């Protein structure tokens, strides 16, 4: 589940962010404690706590004294907004670069995208 690349704490943070963005962890919902996360991922509890702290610092989680950690109100909306802003940089630019390397022109690329989204029955183009 966890790979060798990034520091583990940031991978834990990333997993939590993903859960919030997917709506799997709803706003106002209690999130697992660092000990629960440590047991689940088989990682050091201090590392799990560091991962949670990343989300607290970015305001996605809030600590409620004596009860635990909760997903902040508006967290999901902020995450999705942030992802939309970074969509071009993260997905479109690398794809265009690879297409260029392979000699796929812009029209063909656009068609490929249409086909792919059609196959998924998903987004309207």
């Amino acid at each position, binding site marked *: 589940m*966890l790979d*060798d*690349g*990034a*520091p*583990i*704490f940031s991978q834990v943070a990333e997993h939590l962010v993903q859960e919030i963005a997917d709506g799997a962890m709803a706003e106002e919902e209690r999130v697992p404690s*660092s*000990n629960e996360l*440590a*047991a689940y*991922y*088989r*990682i*050091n*509890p*201090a*590392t799990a706590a*560091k991962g949670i702290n990343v989300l607290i610092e970015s305001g996605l989680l809030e600590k409620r004294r004596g009860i635990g950690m909760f997903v902040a109100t508006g967290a999901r909306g902020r995450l999705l907004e942030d992802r939309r802003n970074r969509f071009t940089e993260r997905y479109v630019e*690398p794809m265009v*670069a690879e297409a260029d390397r392979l000699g796929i022109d812009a029209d063909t690329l656009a068609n490929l995208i249409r086909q792919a989204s059609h196959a998924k029955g998903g987004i309207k183009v």
Partner: protein
Amino acid sequence: MTSTISVAGLTRRYRDHLALDDVTFAVDGPSITGLLGRNGAGKSTLMRIVAGQEFASAGRVLVGGASPVENDAVLRRMVLVREDQAFPDVKVRDALRAASWCYPNWSAELGESLLADFDLPARRPIKRLSRGMLSALGIVIGLAARAELTLLDEPYAGLDAVARELFYDRLLADYAEHPRTVLLSTHLIDEVADLLERVVIIDHGRIVLDAPADDVRGSITTVRGSVGAVERFVAGRPTWDRRRIASQETVVVAGTLDQVDVLRARELDLTLEPLSLQQVMVHAASRVSEEPKERTSA
């Protein structure tokens, strides 16, 4: 704050063999620290000296601020589980009872549940246990002791993968509720990598790396690609290992790569692969054995 373990200038010489060579390190407060290295690197010697079971030739060892040597107050606050653990010739249950008298924080409840977890027959004489069962018994005692300093020296000879996972789970669960200082030595590095907060790598009796586990991950990267591109990328960086085949080159680069480096690697069509902790250990160890050669050629 007094360090849990404080070791300075520790040296241990056996006749013509230098097992520990000027080792200095400290562990403060609760953590799980991995003591990693090849066989014969000095891990066990270091553990035994910290546990007061062996003497240093030179240097200083303090546990909780006091020397562990023949110091009952200190020895009761720590437990050492050794690979070649020797037990008295009694039944399993009696060994646990004896341990309960030695360790003030002993948890009988945890001991019982661990016995069940590891399927250890409480009534069987210890001399009739298999190698794996002996290791499991060592682990049961090591965890149930809840000692402030828990030294686990290759605690799992003969344990299969399932039993080892059980050990990791129980260690984490009990550590989470009862934080303590755990020093774990193992050669199954990638298995325990994620459990560790800090990594100390020892080679030929010397500490060659001592860093937070998070800093070690991603601190060393394999760069792969065409020779010219790789050369351009690694120029000016410390490199550890170079291999070439035809027009392809693979170089191990030390130092964390930033976002700019990653983009540049992408432009140069290079593959970046972070080294696992196990590979870091291998490289760290081989570097040390190369050093003397460099000195003589200089």
